[in-house]
C-alpha cells in the first residue's frame, strides 16, 4: 500500500490517497497518516479511495475515528470515489449514513467546506 499526501489548491484540506487493500496489516500506518494530518492543523481530511481495492471493518473503524476527530474540530472527513466493492461494504455497515462520501476531489472539497462552515456556525450559536 502507498499513501500520498497533498492539499487542495486553497490549502484548506488535506487529501490523503490510499491504494490497494486496507486491512489490519496497514491500519497502523494509515491511522498514523490521519493523526499527522490532524496534528498539522487540518480540520478537514479527504481520503481518496480511488485506488483502494479492499476494505475491512478495521479500515472502516479508522475512517470513523477520523470522522470524529474532524468533527470535534468543526471540520469534516470525506471519503472520495470508493469503488463498487468498497462502497458496498461501507453501505452494508450503515456507514454511508454517518460518513460523507463524494465522487471526486472537487465535490469533496465543496462538501468539506460546507460541513465545516455548518459546524462552525453551530458551535458559535451554542457558545452564545
Amino acid at each position, binding site marked *: 500500500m502507498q499513501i500520498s499526501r497533498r492539499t487542495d489548491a486553497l490549502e484548506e484540506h488535506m487529501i490523503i490517497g490510499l491504494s490497494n487493500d486496507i486491512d489490519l496489516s496497514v491500519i497502523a500506518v494509515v491511522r498514523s497518516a490521519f493523526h499527522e494530518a490532524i496534528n498539522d492543523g487540518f480540520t478537514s481530511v479527504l481520503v481518496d479511495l480511488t485506488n483502494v481495492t*479492499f476494505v475491512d471493518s478495521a479500515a472502516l*473503524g479508522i475512517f470513523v*475515528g477520523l470522522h*470524529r476527530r474532524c468533527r470535534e474540530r468543526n471540520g469534516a472527513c470525506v471519503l472520495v470515489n470508493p469503488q463498487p466493492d468498497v462502497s458496498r461494504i461501507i453501505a*452494508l455497515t450503515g456507514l454511508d449514513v454517518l460518513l460523507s462520501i463524494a465522487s471526486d476531489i472537487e465535490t469533496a472539497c465543496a462538501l468539506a467546506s460546507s460541513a465545516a462552515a455548518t459546524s462552525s456556525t453551530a458551535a458559535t450559536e451554542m457558545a452564545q
Partner: protein
Amino acid sequence: MSSGDEVVLRVPAKSDYIALVRVVLAAAAAIDPDSRSDRVEDLRVAVSEAVTNAVESHRTAGTDSHIEVRCYTEGHEVEVTVRDHGPGFDPDNVPVVPDAESPERMFFENGLGLPLMRRLVDKTDIETGDDGTLVRLVIDTSTSPKV
C-alpha cells in the same frame, strides 16, 4: 464424506498473511464456473474478517501458534472454517454498535466484523471456548447476494 474439494491453509498469526488467505480462498471459490463474482467477493470479505479476529485473538493471548483455514467446496456451496487458539469470547455478549444515525456512533471504531460476516454469508457458526475459536462460514456462490 462426499466428493468435494478441500484446501487447507496453516498460516502464521500475523496480519501480513490475511491478504494471502483472501487470495487463496477467493480463487478456490471461483473455480466453480457458476460462481458469481459478487458472492466470491462477499466470501473474501467475510473470511478476511474471521482471520483478522483470529490474528487479534492470538495477539491477545500472546501465542505464536498458527491459524488453520479450511475451505471445502462442493457444487456451488463453499464452507470455510477458521480455527484459532486464542482465549475465546462470548459471541452473544459483544458490544452492540449504535445505529449510524445515532450521535454516539462516531465513538465506536470497533465491533463491525461479526455483524458484517453474518450479513455477507448464508450461514455463520461460532464455537468458542478457553482453547480457541472455530468460525464456520457457508455460502452458495451461485445465488444472489443476501443484501
